[in-house]
């Protein structure tokens, strides 16, 4: 308990120091004045989640507790937690901002983020639950050579986790800077310290409950802003037609905000982006891990159903929020539009990503602004802790226990390693957050989904459904997908031209998933049919037993306990 007291004391100190420092910093333009309701509500969230972590720490003894919350999460709870993992601050602020600027085009994006879920439901949810234990690498190494498969799966997981972490940490730092007037470095450090506490002490149980609370707060907060804005903007009639009518009068695109525009022009880009969004979701390690926290396939299915409902509802809300923001914030007299220091043109205070946050102030004043700010911070904390737990599990369960120690490791030692890994990842997250402060990290989301769709998803789906895959095929396809998706992004227009400023891109498409996924599947197929080794034959033969377990779940209930 001493450790706990010290941790609390250190955290309280760093929070106080950060706030005090920020309060003395009023001269800076980009920081807002300190919002007292926001800080009170945020501190209440931190206190509640640390309380949960303390409660969860008492119940987290075994490896199964640490990685999978003892397998005792219900379908409904897990649905909320999955939704919590998926509804990041980036999608809440980013999509409502996209609708604010582009209108209808924002909806096209939201649709893409959602349609991966039914696919996960039909082809993967129960299979994952029946074959896996703690990480998705359990599934892809089920009948294959353990060392190379685990190494590849863990690498894929860590690449995705770290790319996603950079985006979230930079976003977190910037957001907290704007909302709480806190210095960037302090903001990033506080996020890092809190997630280390949640994950090391509370494991999956604490992470899940932090996620559930955050999902409820976010859904509640977004509902209030969306319908509040609809009420205010339509003078109480709540008619979407009236909202759209006003938006077309105010927005400088006029009627074009109601139509698909230039965001999706090339069919190849559109299809490629669609593939990355749809199948990338099914390759995110922190999402896949959630399927091991429920007791059986029945609950796994329920959790996807609830998650799809919550996420779909959330995207409809962000669409309403974007249009509400057009009507209530875009007129110059609203006071939310400020001249751009460079061009002098009117732009939204804090940038387009602040549409939802500014709208909360317009609808509910300082109290709602404070609430939404606290919710946005909570959202970042929850998503980052889910990611960190997934990364730590890849290190301890896949790399340490199965690759380095060849499975000969006792549970307590494995959990100890994952706690150390959490600490290291937390520190890395803080350092990366600081290192990337000045970078444009928007492209990282696309890269993350492309890598997840090209490296993790193909080996996962093929290992479940195709009896003839062998280790050689899986390795060839998996590495091809990982390397090609990363290379294509670097050589493509987003990084080569826009970030590195090297001129015309070598790879002509912004969204590489169509090509890198094809390479990955081809690699798996060619590598497997060319493999005539005895080892390969044994792997094909063992598909039968894997499939029976996958279909019925027989053997799966026992597997998680030893």
């Amino acid at each position, binding site marked *: 308990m001493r450790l706990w007291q010290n941790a609390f004391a250190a955290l309280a100190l760093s929070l106080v120091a950060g706030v005090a420092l920020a309060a003395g910093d009023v001269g800076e333009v980009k920081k807002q004045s300190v919002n007292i309701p926001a800080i009170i509500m945020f501190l209440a969230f931190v206190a509640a989640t640390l309380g949960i972590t303390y409660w969860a720490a008492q119940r987290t003894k075994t490896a199964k507790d640490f990685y999978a919350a003892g397998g005792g999460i219900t379908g409904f709870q897990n649905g909320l937690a999955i939704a919590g993992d998926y509804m990041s601050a980036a999608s809440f602020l980013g999509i409502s901002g996209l609708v604010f600027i582009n209108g*209808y085009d924002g*909806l*096209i994006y*939201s*649709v*893409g983020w*959602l*349609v991966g*879920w*039914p*696919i996960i*439901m*039909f*082809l993967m949810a*129960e299979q994952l639950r029946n074959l896996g234990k703690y990480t998705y690498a359990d599934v892809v190494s089920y009948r294959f050579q353990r060392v190379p498969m685990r190494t590849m799966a863990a690498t894929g997981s860590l690449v995705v986790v770290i790319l996603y972490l950079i985006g979230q940490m930079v976003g977190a730092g910037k957001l907290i800077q704007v909302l709480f007037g806190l210095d960037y470095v302090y903001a990033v450090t506080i996020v890092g310290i809190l997630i280390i506490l949640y994950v090391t002490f509370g494991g999956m149980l604490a992470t899940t409950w932090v996620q559930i609370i955050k999902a409820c707060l976010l859904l509640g907060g977004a509902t209030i802003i969306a319908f509040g804005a609809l009420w205010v903007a339509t003078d109480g009639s709540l008619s*979407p*037609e009236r909202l*759209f*009518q006003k938006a*077309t009068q105010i927005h400088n695109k006029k*009627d074009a905000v*109601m*139509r*698909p525009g230039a965001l*999706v*022009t*090339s*069919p190849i880009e*559109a*299809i490629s982006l*669609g593939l990355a969004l*749809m199948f990338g979701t099914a390759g995110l390690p922190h999402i896949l891990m959630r399927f091991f926290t429920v007791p059986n*396939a*029945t609950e796994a*299915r*329920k959790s*996807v*159903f609830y998650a*799809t*409902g919550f996420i*779909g509802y959330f*995207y*409809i809300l962000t669409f309403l929020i974007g249009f509400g923001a057009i009507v209530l914030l875009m007129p110059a007299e609203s006071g939310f539009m400020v001249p751009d220091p460079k061009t002098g043109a009117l732009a939204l205070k804090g940038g387009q990503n602040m549409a939802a946050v500014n709208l909360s102030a317009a609808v509910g004043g300082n109290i709602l602004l404070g609430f939404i700010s606290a919710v946005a911070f909570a959202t970042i904390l929850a998503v980052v802790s889910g990611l960190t737990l997934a990364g730590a599990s890849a290190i301890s369960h896949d790399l340490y226990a199965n690759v380095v120690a060849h499975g000969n490791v006792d549970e307590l030692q494995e959990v100890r390693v994952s706690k150390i890994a959490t600490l290291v990842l937390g520190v890395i997250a803080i350092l990366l957050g600081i290192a990337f402060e000045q970078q444009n990290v928007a492209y990282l989301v696309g890269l993350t989904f492309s890598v997840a769709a090209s490296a993790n998803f193909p080996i996962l789906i093929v290992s479940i459904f195709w009896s003839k895959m062998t280790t050689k095929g899986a390795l060839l396809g998996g590495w091809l997908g990982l390397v090609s998706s990363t290379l294509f992004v670097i050589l493509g227009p987003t990084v080569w031209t826009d970030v590195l400023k090297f001129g015309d891109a070598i790879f002509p498409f912004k969204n590489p998933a169509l090509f890198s996924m094809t390479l990955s599947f081809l690699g798996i197929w060619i590598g497997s049919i060319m493999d005539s080794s005895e080892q390969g034959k044994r792997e094909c033969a063992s598909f*039968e*037993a894997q499939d*029976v*377990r996958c*279909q*019925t*779940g*027989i*053997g799966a209930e026992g597997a998680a306990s030893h």
Partner: protein
Amino acid sequence: MQQDLVHAIKSNPKYHELVSKRKTFAWILAILMLVIYYGFILIVAFNKAFLSQQLWTGSITTVGIPIGLGVIISAFVLTGIYVFRANSEFDRLTREIKEEVL
């Protein structure tokens, strides 16, 4: 899993019923979702005018709004249909198989 257990399960007719029913059902729904989503994306890419029509005479709301929301709602409905059948019929079959072989 022991080889004899695998054979016992595989020679059970209910196992084959379960596997083939679920496979057909899951792939039909998956393909339906892909068709709905890529249909939407292809309309966006090739026929923007269709989505830009007025929903009713004089309306600001375009045809694209209910279609976009419809894709979101269809995702939810399709998962619901799957869960409804899987958690009743497929789980019942699985339970019966387990009772017979274990």
